[in-house]
C-alpha cells in the first residue's frame, strides 16, 4: 500500500466515511422523483450561500447603532466586491423565501406531509417562520431610516398583543425607544440566535428525510395506509429504488447551481438595495416599507378594517400557525395525488393568488397618501379664471391631491375626482369637504370660506 492509500484508509477508519456517510449518500430513493424534488435541496444550498455571505459580511459590518450605517456605506461603495457581496446576500434572502414557498407548495400539493412524514412538515413550518424572521431582522440590520422605522412599526404590532404586548415591544427594541441598544438585539437575533435554531431544525429536517425516506411521486389511487405504508415503501425501494448519489443528486446540484448563478447575476446587475437616510429616529420624512417578501403582510394590515385590526393582528397569525401545524394530523392518510385532491389544489391556488394580489397592492400602496404628488399643471387646470387657478393651487396646498386622483395625478386613497363636477353639485361638494367622513378629514376647521369657494369652483370644472 502506498502512503496515500494508507493515509486514506486511516482517515476512513477514524472518520467512518465508508461505514456511516457513504450509506447515507447512497440511500435508496424512489425512481421518478425528478425535477419537482429539487426545491428542498435548492433551499438548503441557498441557506449555505446565506451563511457564507453572511459570515463574510460580518467581517465588514459594524454592529453598533452609531457605526452601522457608515459601515454599510463602506461595504456598498468601497469594500472590494462589497457591493456584490451585499447584493448576493440580499437576493439570496429573496431566493430563500421563494424556494421555501415553492418547496412547501410542492409538499402540500403532493401531500408528502402524510404518514410517516408529519414531523417533516411540522419542522418545515417552524423553518418557514424562522426564514421570515431572518428576512425581517436582516432588513433591520441595514440600519438606515427605513430599518429604524420598520423596527418601530414591528414593536407597535407586537404591542397590540394583550397584556404582554408592551413588554414584547420593549424586548424587541431593547428599551423604551429606538436607540443604542436596539441594533445589538437585532444583530444578535440575526447572526446568532436564529441561525442556531435554524441549523438545529435543518439538521432535524434532514435527519427525518433519511429516517422516513423521500416521498414517492404521488399516483392517483395509491392510498397511504399508516398500517401498511412503511412495509410497502421499503419493498418498493428494494425493488425499484435508485441510490441517491449520484442518480438523484445530480439534479439537485444542477438546479441549485442554476439558482445560485441566478442570484449572483441579479446581484451583479442590480446590486443591493440602496440605503435610505441615516438612522436617526428624528428623520421623519421617510416612508417605511418592508422588503418585497414582507409586502403581502404589510398590505394585509393596511387593508383590514381598523375596528378589528387589533384582534386580527394577533388572531390571524395564530390561526395560520395552528392550521399549518394541525394539517398533517387532520389528514395523514389516504389519497396523495393532486388529481384526486381538487380542493387542496384549489385552496393552494387561492392562497398563492391572494399573496400575489397583496404583493401587487403592497407595491402600489393605494392606501398611502402620495406626498410626492406634484401641483397640477396649467394645462391640466385648463382655465385662466383666477378663482379656478387659485382653487387648483389649494387642491395641492391643502393636501387634497395626496389622496385624490385628478387626470392621472395624485394619490389613490380617496375617490378619483377627474369628473367629480359631473357627479356632485356645489352643495354636495361643500358638505363633503367641510364635514369629511371615513377616510376624509373634515376640512371645515382648516379652510376659510374663500378658500372653500375656490376649491369648489375648481372641482366643478372637472367634468
Amino acid at each position: 500500500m502506498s502512503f496515500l492509500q494508507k493515509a486514506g484508509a486511516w482517515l476512513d477508519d477514524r472518520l467512518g466515511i465508508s461505514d456511516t456517510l457513504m450509506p447515507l449518500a447512497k440511500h435508496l430513493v424512489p425512481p421518478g422523483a425528478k425535477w419537482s424534488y429539487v426545491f428542498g435541496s435548492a433551499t438548503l444550498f441557498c441557506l449555505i450561500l446565506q451563511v457564507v455571505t453572511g459570515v463574510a459580511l460580518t467581517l465588514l459590518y459594524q454592529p453598533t447603532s452609531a457605526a452601522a450605517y457608515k459601515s454599510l456605506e463602506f461595504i456598498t461603495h468601497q469594500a472590494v466586491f462589497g457591493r456584490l457581496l451585499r447584493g448576493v446576500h440580499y437576493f439570496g434572502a429573496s431566493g430563500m423565501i421563494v424556494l421555501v414557498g415553492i418547496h412547501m407548495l410542492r409538499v402540500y400539493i403532493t401531500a408528502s406531509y402524510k404518514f410517516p412524514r408529519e414531523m417533516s412538515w411540522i419542522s418545515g413550518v417552524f423553518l418557514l417562520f424562522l426564514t421570515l424572521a431572518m428576512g425581517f431582522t436582516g432588513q433591520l440590520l441595514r440600519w438606515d431610516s427605513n430599518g429604524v422605522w420598520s423596527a418601530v412599526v414591528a414593536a407597535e404590532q407586537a404591542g397590540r398583543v394583550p397584556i404582554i404586548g408592551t413588554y414584547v415591544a420593549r424586548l424587541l427594541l431593547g428599551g423604551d425607544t429606538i436607540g443604542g441598544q436596539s441594533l445589538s438585539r437585532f444583530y444578535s437575533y440575526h447572526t446568532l440566535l436564529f441561525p442556531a435554531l435554524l441549523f438545529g431544525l435543518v439538521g432535524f429536517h434532514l435527519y427525518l428525510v433519511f429516517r422516513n425516506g423521500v416521498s414517492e411521486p404521488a399516483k392517483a389511487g395509491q392510498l397511504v395506509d399508516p398500517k401498511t405504508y412503511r412495509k410497502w415503501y421499503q419493498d418498493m425501494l428494494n425493488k425499484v429504488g435508485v441510490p441517491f448519489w449520484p442518480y438523484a443528486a445530480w439534479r439537485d446540484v444542477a438546479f441549485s447551481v442554476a439558482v445560485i448563478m441566478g442570484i449572483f447575476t441579479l446581484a451583479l446587475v442590480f446590486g443591493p438595495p440602496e440605503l435610505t437616510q441615516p438612522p436617526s429616529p428624528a428623520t421623519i420624512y421617510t416612508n417605511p416599507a418592508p422588503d418585497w417578501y414582507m409586502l403581502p403582510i404589510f398590505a394585509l394590515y393596511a387593508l383590514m378594517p381598523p375596528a378589528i385590526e387589533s384582534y386580527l393582528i394577533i388572531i390571524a397569525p395564530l390561526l395560520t400557525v395552528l392550521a399549518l401545524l394541525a394539517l398533517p394530523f387532520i389528514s395523514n392518510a389516504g389519497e396523495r395525488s393532486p388529481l384526486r385532491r381538487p380542493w387542496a389544489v384549489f385552496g393552494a391556488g387561492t392562497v398563492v393568488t391572494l399573496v400575489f394580489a397583496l404583493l401587487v397592492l403592497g407595491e402600489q400602496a393605494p392606501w398611502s397618501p402620495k406626498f410626492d404628488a406634484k401641483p397640477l399643471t396649467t394645462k391640466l387646470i385648463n382655465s385662466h379664471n383666477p378663482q379656478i387657478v387659485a382653487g387648483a393651487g389649494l387642491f395641492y396646498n391643502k393636501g387634497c391631491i395626496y389622496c385624490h386622483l385628478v387626470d392621472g395625478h395624485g394619490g389613490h386613497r380617496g375617490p378619483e375626482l377627474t369628473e367629480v363636477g359631473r357627479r356632485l353639485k356645489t352643495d354636495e361638494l361643500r358638505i363633503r369637504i367641510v364635514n369629511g367622513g371615513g377616510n376624509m378629514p373634515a376640512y371645515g376647521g382648516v379652510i376659510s370660506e374663500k378658500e372653500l369657494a375656490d376649491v369648489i369652483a375648481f372641482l366643478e370644472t372637472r367634468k
Partner: protein
Amino acid sequence: MSEEKFPTPPTPTPSPSLTEQAGNPNVDADARAEREGEPRRDFLVKLTFGLGGVAALAIGVPVVSAVLAPLLEPDPQTWRKVGTLTDFAVGSTHLVKFENADSKAWSGLTSESAAWLRRESEKEFIAFSVNCAHLGCPVRWEQGAGLFMCPCHGGIYYKDGTVAAGPPPQGLTQYHIRVAGNNDVELLTAPIPITNMTS
C-alpha cells in the same frame, strides 16, 4: 425498549434473594444489577440533575438578565431643552429634535428623538409624539393643510392631535412641556407610545 430500563421507585417489599434470582434464567444480568443498585442509581440520577440545576441556575441568572434587560431597567424620563421662546412663533408648528432619555454612549444618531411642537399662545405649548397612534409611522405636519398626515396608511390628525381620518384608533400622544426659567422650552422625553389593544 424493555420496561426494566426505566428507573422505578424503590419498593418497600424485600427484593428476591440472590440465589432465587440466579436460579431464574429469565432474569438477565443487567436487570439484576440495576435492581440491586436501585438506591445508588436513584441517588446518581438525583445528583446529576441536582448538579446540572445548580450550574444552569448560576449561569442562567446573568444570561436571562441580559435577555430581559430592557424590562429590568427603569425607563427614565428626562426634561430636555428643545429651544427658546424666540424660536417658536405663536401659532406655528415645529419639528423639534432632542436626545432621548436613556441614550447610550454608542447610540450615535439613534439617540435622537423628535416631537411636534405647537405654540398655542404666549404661554402655552403643546407637544405631540411623531409616532402615529396606528402603527407608529412618523407623521408629518402639512403646513398648508393644517393637518398631521401619516405616510403608512393615511392616518390624519387635526392640529390638536385628534384623529381626523384613517385607521388610528386614538389621537397623537402628547408630551409634557414647560417653559423653564424665563426662556427655555423643555420637553419631558417619553417612550415610544405603544397603542395597545384596549385603546
